[in-house]
């Protein structure tokens, strides 16, 4: 995989397919020569994103679309239609008091990835965009 290659993956929005996304991104990160530790970080972050998409996006269609792109010595991942637009405040953490859906998962994504943001996607829902930079020792 070169720096400009991109890969698309779509899985059913169901728990039993999260492992497919996890193993796929591990292969992609390995191809980009990420360290073993960084591959594990990306695996967990993508799995948490899929788990979040299952919890939040039941009304957003039956599939989870993931776009992977290598570039600038980083891996960029977009989870299309991750959550409804109405979840934006909660996801940004300025939702006030009260329980949050998948709070631990969101925390892990932020801890493991170098950049995490949400933006309105083409489907009228929120896309989750996250990036992990290669660490050079």
């Amino acid at each position: 995989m070169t720096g400009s290659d991109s890969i698309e993956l779509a899985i059913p929005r169901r728990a039993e397919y999260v492992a497919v996304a996890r193993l796929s991104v591990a292969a992609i990160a390995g191809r980009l020569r990420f360290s073993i530790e960084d591959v594990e970080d990306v695996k967990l972050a993508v799995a948490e994103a899929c788990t979040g998409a299952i919890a939040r996006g039941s009304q957003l269609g039956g599939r989870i679309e993931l776009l992977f792109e290598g570039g600038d010595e980083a891996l960029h991942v977009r989870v299309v239609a991750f959550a409804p637009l109405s979840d934006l405040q909660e996801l940004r953490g300025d939702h006030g008091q009260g329980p949050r859906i998948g709070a631990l998962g969101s925390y892990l994504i932020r801890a493991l990835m170098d950049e995490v943001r949400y933006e309105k996607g083409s489907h009228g829902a929120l896309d989750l965009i996250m990036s992990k930079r290669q660490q050079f020792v």
Partner: protein
Amino acid sequence: MEIKISIRKANDATSVIELVGEIDVYTSPKVKDAVSGLIDSGIYNIIIDLAQVKYIDSTGLGVLIGGLKRVREHGGSVHLICNNPQIRKIFDITGLVKIFGIFDTEEAALRALK
């Protein structure tokens, strides 16, 4: 992905749940059933052996936290056996290392329960 679960008694007051495989959103309900079953049967000191677990996500952590909350209501504990650095890292970054007893061996976990 599958998870293998086996349960045995370590002594009269303590049981060990040994897990082999990966704990994710698909397999964590099975782990939850195992933990809940022990607690429902009156076992409040539980050692969960993660030594052969290759992967755990937030749903798995949620199951462990839920189990810990329930046994603490009865004065019990959940101790973990974990010597996989990647799994240990997840406990470190979530701060869960402060609420679980995490040990390298079953013997050490049992000593801590006495």
